[in-house]
């Protein structure tokens, strides 16, 4: 389990929750903000939101498990979305998934030990002509091959390492 970037405290979450009026309809907005800030929803989030807007903890938890954009485990700094829609599947998305596993030792839904990457399988990103497609953060990569994959990952690893020197001691050679 990768450590969350920051040590999340109840006070941090409360500060986010307090930006919103104490009304039930803001539950999702608060969770999105927390997700953006900490890259996941730490357990105390539900209790904090419950105290703020009154919605039961179980219902907030249900909401969080419904949306793919919210995650209960820390997501990596770089989120790899590998398309496994029909076109990408036919053009070898499963192979790429194996390639990512080999490079980062993660399965879909997991985050790498250094907290730099997490992998998600998605169904069609609407760029079938470029199949197989992989999206890292906001960048789209089309016609990805096993040969081009390591360089793409390395590029993001380098970018992250320049940002946060700390978490990058283990340069994995893919």
């Amino acid at each position, binding site marked *: 389990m990768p450590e969350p970037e920051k040590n999340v405290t109840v006070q941090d979450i409360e500060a986010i929750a307090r930006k919103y009026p104490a009304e039930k309809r803001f539950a999702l907005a608060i969770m999105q903000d927390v997700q953006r800030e900490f890259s996941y929803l730490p357990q105390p989030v539900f209790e904090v939101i419950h105290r703020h807007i009154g919605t*039961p903890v*179980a*219902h907030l*938890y*249900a909401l969080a*498990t*419904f949306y793919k954009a919210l995650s209960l485990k820390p997501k990596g700094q770089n989120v790899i979305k590998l398309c496994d829609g029909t076109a990408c599947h036919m053009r070898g998305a499963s192979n790429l998934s194996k390639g990512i596993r080999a490079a980062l030792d993660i399965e879909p839904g997991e985050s790498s030990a250094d907290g730099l990457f997490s992998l998600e399988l998605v169904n069609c990103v609407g760029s079938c002509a470029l199949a197989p497609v992989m999206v890292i953060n906001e960048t789209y990569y089309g016609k990805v091959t096993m040969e081009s994959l390591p360089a793409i990952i390395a590029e993001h690893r380098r970018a992250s390492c320049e940002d946060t020197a700390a978490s990058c001691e283990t340069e994995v050679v893919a």
Partner: protein
Amino acid sequence: MSLNISIDGKTCTCESGEFLLEVARRNGFYIPTLCAHESLSEQGCCRVCIVEIVSGERSQIVVSCVYPVERAIEVLTNSEKVKALRGMTLALLQKLAPASSLIAGMCKAYGAPELPRLEARADDDTCILCGLCVKACAQLGTGAIAAVNRGIEKKIATPYDQPSATCIGCASCAQVCPTGSIVVKQDAQERSIWGRTFTLLACDRCGVILDTTEAVAYAATLRDAPPEHLCPDCRKQQVAQAFVGVYGK
């Protein structure tokens, strides 16, 4: 405004806006239901209560438990179309709850088709995900359970599948569940539900079990009164005796 409608050929009177299921039941018609519960508002999700409505050439399938009658209609509760669709609905519900004997029985009774090409959920699943339990718990004001995850992973659970701090062990969820899906274990002293064990309180006088300590305390906070320690019968007797003391000379 009163309306006359025909159900399987019988003329029935009802108020405009009444739900069709209610009207049919009042007039002695049996329509199978799973997710309809008299004390919880319309769920309308199991779809086994469907009926056919005919007007002239046109016919329409409606969900009787949530269909408000607003004009004179002709209702068929057991037409060929209804039978076929109800059978299919039950067959699909059985894929959700393959271990439910209730659903299995209904499948048999209503001639549900086998659907060998569809994979069923886990062998021991009995939940049809109707959400009645969640509603009951929410309506009580506890809200300890909810439908978590989605798609084929959806299930009713407490947060993180952990014993819930808000659960009071009242077992209302288990009581409303149409398929008996929620496991409650109880002996003379304790009740276990949703992974947590609660101590039971007994009536001070006759020893009959009242509820869990937490449920009794919760009921007291709702009434803004001290927790009850007598069962309804003993409470009545006590009140009666008090009156005898005052007036009965």
